[in-house]
């Protein structure tokens, strides 16, 4: 069995990565061509990895479930990407970005990894600019930056409100170039449904061709999973409809440990839920909190009147408003971190002061900024966001405050990986949002794009070489090997069981039910009691799913309902692991808030007992997983209470 060795290189923090690179084993160019690498997922992490590895000469196969690699969920990121360039001369540095990321993550991330991330962040911007990514520029023609998510320096690079799109299109261009050169075989509309392991090493995947429904076998000397986050466990989230956990979950079942599954990020500024037909939630960029003030009425009566349409925001006098973030966190105010802002909104609404009919919504008010800056400045700052909000809600935020509420946005948890981004299965790697590595218990704004591209462009090309150098004598394994046959059979059996159940409830019925349990009991606030109950409910729901789900159509055709069912089946199992992890972690940290562990309403971390990464080993769907702990060592940062008061 594999042991948890994070493989952090020796030496002082700032030299670990260069030490590693200087000593990593290399593969000679003639051998690279003979080595095949499978990259599952072509978002920022996957596209960057596939392109970079192909440039080095490896023979790459890349997979995505959309019709084109250009559509990965990374495309939706709005705000920006961090990098410690210090172009503003405002005191930023690699160490400061490292420090902010560890602190923001509530001291639950690995120092070595995070320092490397901060370090290579600078190369990312250089690379993207060279590709022609049209970042915003100042009048002198140099790159512009903004401050984001409450950081005290301006280190966020952006391309209007479409940073993710532009970065992804840059990586997609690099990938398409390699496809054109014949170095990458691209398989779009393909969904990975199994990892194939031979003698303990990852050797390939089984993928479902989503057009024909056929199961196909692919060999690789190494397999990289870059498949994004699992926020859709909650049914409603800001993730794209297709975002799923299938690849990582299948890997988990084949021996890859799952790290900190309960660490999820709930973003404070999303458009509130309005009806049960709703399919997803829309994020309103965090940048709005730079100029918007969050409030609810002081009195429950006023709130009720607003909910019932008898009063509007304008009827509530200044003195009768509770700008609760400014009240509770005077030094950061409306700019406090995401987890804190989200929890505060929940508290206000739980107190009966929510302002939308469901009771779950608060105001984000621009009136003061408009008074101070003038309507034109405010309009220019939030150019695309206001019309977007108005289009969705039919209300003009320049005239009446926005209504917002927290929603599931990002998953810090993911497959456990070591410093080389390798999971506990040799030859199986995990990059981007899909791994657990760099954000601890809470991710800072504009850091996910940075991590995805760091992993793909600048980390994996070195670390995968270190492994593949030992694989050069392994000839491609023919896919009629029994391990491939068996993995395909497993996938086939499962698929047949799903399609033949022909029960009475739809896939969405189950997904919504799952989402409700997770949101209520494993969402913004968790208790031992609620989690224990949730676990039972999930087990029950899973049983019901396998006996009563109705998946229309057949297996040998284009069948999106089947694809969805197969993803929900995996969410139902992952949901339980999230609950188990949340129950195990008897502390509050970052996005994980256990009501039992608080002090004066603020999260209470327990460094003595929980300063570790929880890495879970799969033992069977109905069996308890086994916990392995990776102790977190802080040599360069002093642990402290994360205060934003």
């Amino acid at each position: 069995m594999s042991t948890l060795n994070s493989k952090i290189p020796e030496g002082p923090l700032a030299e670990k990565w260069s030490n590693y690179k200087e000593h990593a084993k290399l593969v000679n160019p003639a051998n690279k061509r003979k080595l095949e690498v499978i990259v599952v997922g072509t978002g920022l992490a996957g596209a960057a990895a596939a392109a970079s590895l192909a440039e080095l000469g490896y023979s790459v196969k890349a997979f995505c479930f959309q019709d084109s690699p250009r559509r990965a969920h990374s495309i939706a990121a709005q705000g920006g990407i961090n990098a410690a360039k210090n172009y503003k001369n405002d005191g930023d540095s690699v160490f400061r970005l490292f420090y902010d990321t560890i602190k923001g993550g509530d001291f639950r991330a690995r120092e070595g990894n995070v320092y490397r991330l901060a370090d290579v962040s600078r190369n990312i911007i250089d690379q993207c600019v060279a590709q022609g990514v049209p970042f915003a520029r100042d009048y002198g023609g140099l790159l512009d930056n903004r401050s984001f998510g409450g950081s005290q320096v301006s280190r966020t690079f952006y391309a209007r409100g479409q940073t993710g799109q532009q970065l992804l299109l840059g990586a997609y261009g690099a990938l398409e170039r390699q496809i054109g050169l014949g170095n990458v075989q691209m398989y779009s509309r393909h969904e990975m449904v199994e990892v194939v392991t031979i003698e303990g090493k990852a050797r390939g995947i089984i993928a479902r061709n989503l057009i024909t429904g056929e199961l196909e076998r692919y060999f690789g000397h190494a397999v990289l999973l870059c498949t994004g986050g699992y926020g859709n466990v909650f049914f409603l989230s800001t993730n794209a409809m297709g975002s799923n956990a299938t690849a990582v979950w299948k890997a988990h079942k084949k021996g890859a440990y799952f790290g900190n599954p309960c660490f999820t990020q709930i973003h404070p500024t999303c458009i509130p839920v309005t009806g049960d037909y709703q399919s997803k939630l829309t994020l309103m960029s965090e940048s709005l909190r730079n100029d918007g003030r969050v409030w609810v009425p002081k009195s429950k009566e006023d709130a009720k009147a607003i909910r019932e349409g008898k009063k509007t925001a304008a009827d509530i006098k200044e003195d009768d408003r509770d700008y609760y973030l400014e009240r509770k966190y005077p030094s950061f105010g409306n700019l406090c971190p995401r987890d804190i802002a989200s929890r505060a909104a929940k508290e206000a609404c739980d107190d009966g002061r929510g302002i939308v009919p469901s009771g779950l919504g608060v105001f984000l008010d621009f009136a003061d900024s408009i008074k101070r800056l003038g309507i034109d400045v405010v309009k220019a700052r939030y150019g695309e966001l206001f019309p977007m909000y108005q289009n969705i809600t039919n209300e003009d935020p320049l005239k009446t405050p926005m209504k917002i509420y927290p929603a599931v946005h990002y998953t810090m948890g993911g497959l456990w990986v070591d410093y080389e981004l390798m999971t506990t299965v040799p030859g199986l790697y995990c990059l981007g949002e899909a791994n657990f590595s760099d954000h601890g218990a809470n991710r800072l704004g504009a850091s996910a794009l940075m991590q995805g591209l760091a992993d793909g462009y600048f980390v994996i090309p070195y670390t995968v070489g270190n492994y593949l150098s030992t694989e050069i004598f392994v000839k491609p394994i023919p896919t009629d090997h029994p391990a491939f046959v068996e993995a395909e059979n497993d996938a086939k059996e499962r698929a047949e069981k799903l399609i033949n159940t022909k029960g009475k409830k739809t896939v969405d019925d189950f997904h919504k039910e799952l989402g409700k349990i997770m949101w209520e009991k494993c969402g913004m606030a968790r208790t031992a009691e609620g989690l224990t109950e949730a676990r039972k409910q999930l087990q029950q729901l899973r049983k019901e799913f396998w006996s009563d789900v109705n998946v229309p159509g057949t297996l040998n055709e284009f069948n999106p309902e089947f694809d969805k069912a197969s993803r929900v089946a995996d969410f139902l199992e992952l949901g339980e692991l999230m609950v188990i992890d949340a129950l195990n972690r008897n502390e509050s940290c970052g996005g994980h808030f256990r009501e039992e562990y608080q002090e004066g309403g603020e999260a209470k971390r327990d460094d003595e007992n929980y300063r570790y990464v929880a890495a879970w080993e799969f033992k069977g769907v109905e069996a308890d997983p086994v916990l392995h702990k990776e102790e977190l060592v802080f040599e360069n940062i002093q642990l402290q209470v994360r205060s934003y008061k």
Partner: protein
Amino acid sequence: MKYNLKVWRQKNSKSEGKLVDYTIDSINPDMSFLEMLDVLNDNLVRKGEDPIAFDHDCREGICGMCSLHISGRAHGPQHAATTCQLYMRSFKDGGTIYIEPWRAKSFPVIKDLVTDRSAFDRIIAAGGFVSVNTGQAQDANNLPIEQAHAEKAMDAAACIGCGACVAACPNSAAMLFVSAKISQLALLPQGGPERNIRAINMVNQMDAEGFGNCTNIGACEAECPKEIKLTNIARMNREYLLASLINE
């Protein structure tokens, strides 16, 4: 609200398709168009019928996956919006709505409303990039770029690759899409060294994929959800012409 829907149903790329009638009621005006289709599909599944296949993913107007021809308009009646950004309040209660896939020879139907747009990827693979390997870049600020140029490049780079321009064009031309990428890179110094070869290769690939010619109708610009401008096509033609002269 209630609607009569006429939806294109086609089992797969080989079979014939036809418009099928559905009625749907209790639709909330604040529902998005795709949520309306979700509700319809939910009804169909409960009745044991085959749900309607349609492409979608981000549902916020950025991934370019959604792609419906709605009552004769690519992405429906609303200006500068994708199908996923349409709300039912834009449709008259009791009205009839036609829902069809993108119609173009180079975008064959896969099933119902889903088409194969991989031709776009192949055009990008022919030259829609800057050839710079990972790690070869200099410091980003060593290359100042005039703000106005950067902004114009960004305007063109906003294309989401949805294919509405092709679907809207009577000639099924892909000029707006191709010119957006060529323009973005022609406006930036990074695109300079490959400027000529890019224009030639991308245009050749576009022709090889069977897209039609531009006859200056402008339907692409009118239907483009990201307001990509026709001036990009003019720029592309100029780039192509110059490149051809140099290649002589």
